[in-house]
C-alpha cells in the first residue's frame, strides 16, 4: 500500500518535471531565444558546414585506406611490421584525439623556428609547409586517428573470414593477390560494415575538436565568431547540436540501407 503511494508520487513528480521542462524549453524557444544572427552569419555557417563535411568524409576515406594494410600486416605481415602496426593502433587508441591534434598542429609548429635556426633557407624553401592551413593538420590528425581505430577493427575482420573460404580460393588456383582482392578483402569489409557505421558516427562527433586549432569549421564559426561577436551563447550551440544530430541520423540510416543492399550470404 505505502509502496504504491510512493510510486504514484514519484510518477506524478516525474510527469510534472517533464511538463515544466518542456514548457520551459518551448517558452525559451519562442520568447527568449534570439535567432536574428542567422541572417548575418548563414554564409559563414554554410562554409563551416562544408569544411566539417570535408574533414569528416576525407579523414574517413583516407583513414580506411590506411587501415587496410595496418590490419592486414597484423595478420599476415612479418613480425616487425606487425609490431609497428600494433604499436601504432595502441598509441592512437590510448591517447585523446585532442592531444594528438595539438601535438600535430602546435607541436610541429613549434619546431619550425628551431629548423629555421639550423637551416636558414627553411623559411624560404618550405614556405608552403609553414603556410599550410590548419585544416590540413586537422585532416592529418583525424586520418591517423581513424586509421588507428579502423586498423584494429580490420585486423579482427581479416581474422574473422573463415579459413575454409581462403583455402577454397587458393585451391582454385588464385594468386595470393587475387585471393585478397576477390575473397578475403570483400568478406572482411562485409564483416566490419555494422561496426563501421558506429565508427563513422564517432568520427563525425569528433570533428568539432578541429576548432581548437583555428579551423573555421561549423563549431569554429559558432564558438569563435558568432558567440564572440554577438555574445549569444546558447542558440548557436543548439543549432550546432541539431545539425550534428541530423548528420548522425542520416549516417545511421545510410549505413543500414547499404547493409540491406549487401546481403550477408550470397
Amino acid at each position, binding site marked *: 500500500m505505502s509502496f504504491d503511494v510512493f510510486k504514484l508520487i514519484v*510518477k506524478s513528480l*516525474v*510527469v510534472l518535471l*517533464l511538463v515544466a521542462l518542456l514548457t520551459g524549453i518551448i517558452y525559451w524557444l519562442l520568447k527568449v531565444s534570439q535567432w536574428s544572427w542567422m541572417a548575418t552569419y548563414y554564409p559563414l555557417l554554410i562554409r563551416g558546414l562544408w569544411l566539417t563535411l570535408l574533414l569528416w568524409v576525407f579523414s574517413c576515406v583516407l583513414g580506411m585506406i590506411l587501415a587496410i594494410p595496418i590490419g592486414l600486416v597484423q595478420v599476415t605481415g612479418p613480425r616487425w611490421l606487425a609490431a609497428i602496426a600494433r604499436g601504432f593502433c*595502441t*598509441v592512437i*587508441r*590510448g*591517447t*585523446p*584525439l*585532442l*592531444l*594528438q591534434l*595539438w*601535438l600535430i598542429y*602546435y*607541436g*610541429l*609548429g*613549434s*619546431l619550425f623556428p628551431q629548423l629555421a635556426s639550423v637551416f636558414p633557407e627553411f623559411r624560404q624553401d618550405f614556405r608552403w609547409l609553414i603556410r599550410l592551413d590548419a585544416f590540413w593538420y586537422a585532416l592529418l590528425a583525424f586520418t591517423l586517428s581513424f586509421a588507428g581505430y579502423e586498423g584494429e577493427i580490420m585486423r579482427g575482420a581479416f581474422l574473422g573470414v573463415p579459413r575454409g573460404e581462403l583455402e577454397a580460393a587458393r585451391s582454385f588456383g588464385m594468386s595470393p593477390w587475387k585471393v585478397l582482392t576477390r575473397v578475403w578483402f570483400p568478406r572482411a569489409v562485409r564483416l566490419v560494415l555494422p561496426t563501421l557505421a558506429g565508427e563513422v558516427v564517432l568520427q*563525425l*562527433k*569528433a*570533428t*568539432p*575538436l578541429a576548432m*581548437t586549432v583555428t579551423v573555421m569549421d561549423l*563549431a569554429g564559426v559558432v*564558438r569563435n565568431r558568432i558567440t564572440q561577436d554577438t555574445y549569444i*551563447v*546558447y542558440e548557436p*550551440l*543548439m543549432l*550546432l*547540436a541539431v545539425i*550534428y*544530430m541530423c548528420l*548522425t*541520423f542520416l549516417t545511421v540510416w545510410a549505413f543500414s540501407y547499404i547493409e540491406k543492399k549487401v546481403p550477408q550470404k550470397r
Partner: protein
Amino acid sequence: MAGQPGFPEILSFGPTGYGDELLFGASVSVAIALLAYALGLIIGVIGAMSKLYGSTLTRTIMQGYTTLVRAVPELILILILYYAGTATLNQLLESSGFSAIAINGFAAAVLVLGFVQGAYSTEVLRAAIQAIPVGQMEAARAYGMSPWLIFRRITLPSMLPYAIPGLANLWLIVTKDTALIAVVGYTELALATRQAAGNTKMYFTFFMAAGLVYLIITLVSQRGFAMLEKRVRRGQRKLT
C-alpha cells in the same frame, strides 16, 4: 638556448619543473573519470532497468535521453551543459527561493561527463541483460525470489560477462574524454600540459609527455579489465 632549463629539469618534480603539475593534472583527470564513470554506471543501471521493465513513459524518456546524447558530439554537449546547465540550475533555485550555488569546474565536469556516459552505459547494460537466457530469470521467479534478489543473484552475475567488454570500452572513452574539459578551462592533464607548454614553449616535449601518461592509464586499465573479465567468466566455456 641559453638560460633555458634542460630537458630532464623541465619535467622534474621540483619548483622549477612541471612534472608535479602534470602529475597533479593526471590525478585530477583520473578522479573526474572515476566519478563520472560511477555516475554513468548509476544512470546506466537505472536507465537499463527502466528501458527493460519500465512503463511506456519511463521508456520514452530514456529512449529520448540515450538517442539525443549519443547523436551530439561530446564537446558540444559539454559546452552546452557546462554553461547552460549551471545557469538553468541556478535560475531554478533562485525562482524557487533558494540562493544560487556556484558549481565548481570539477563537479560540473563530473556531472556533464557522467550524464554523457550514462547514455552509453544504459545501452551496454541493457544489451547485456537482454543476453541472459530467459530460462534463468523464469527459474528464479518460479523459486519465488524477490526482484532485488533476482537482480543480485541472477541478473548481475550473469550479465557481467556480456557487459564487461562494453564497460571497459566506456572507461577508456571517459578517461580520454576528460581532455575535453580543457576546452572550458578547467585544469586537468590536457590543460596543465598546454599551460606548461605555453610557458616553456616546449610544445613537442610536453604533448609527448602527456600522451605517455594517457597511454599508461589506458594500458594499466586494459590489463585490469582483462583480469576482471577472466574472473567474471570463471566457470564459463572459453570463447574460441
